[in-house]
């Protein structure tokens, strides 16, 4: 299985420069976890991944991609 990449930073800027704090509040996690995700230093659970996608109003695969796929 390849590395899981994400487009959270890009999507935040596309959504009126949503702050990390705002995204954290919407997704129900801490700002530090958003920072870790953006730096690709943490792979979230399926549940958190769905909550982040929902916070942006996009499908899951628009936020997270498997490098190999």
């Amino acid at each position, binding site marked *: 299985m390849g590395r899981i990449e994400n487009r959270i930073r890009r999507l935040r800027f596309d959504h009126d420069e949503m702050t990390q704090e705002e995204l954290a509040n919407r997704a129900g996690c*801490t700002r530090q976890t958003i920072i870790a995700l953006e730096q690709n230093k943490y792979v979230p659970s399926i549940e958190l991944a769905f909550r982040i996608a929902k916070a942006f109003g996009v499908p899951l695969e628009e936020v997270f991609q498997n490098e190999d796929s």
Partner: protein
Amino acid sequence: MAPLQKRALYSFVIGLVLTIALTAVLVAQGDIAAFEKDPNLRLIMYAVLIGVPLVYLILVNITLRKPTQVDERDRLIIERSSRAQWLAVIFSLVAWTIALTEIYRDQGQVPIAFLQLIFMSTLIISALAQSFGILVGYWEMNRNG
């Protein structure tokens, strides 16, 4: 710094201060028998023995209940830190067992005050090791992911 990370840092510092204070009291008392005979000190010890676990439990419950304070990443770090906590407790008990057995082997009995000391030190070591494990967990996660 994550809220849990901050809390772990405070707990670590408080634990260290408590350890130094306890050691200072014991050194000031001279020997373990004097410590055992002082009723005021015993009462303080009982209050600490009951109070510390209670406060710890309440704080842990409050912390873990807030979703904006502790999330899945923090919970993962807490789970990993319990390994350090468990190891530290086991090693401290091993140290107590070997030390007391060797020191009091000739007498064939150990002063009763050691019961409180063993419990107190286990409690402090457990809290210190968990805080240390959490701090190391954040450091490792930030470094390696």
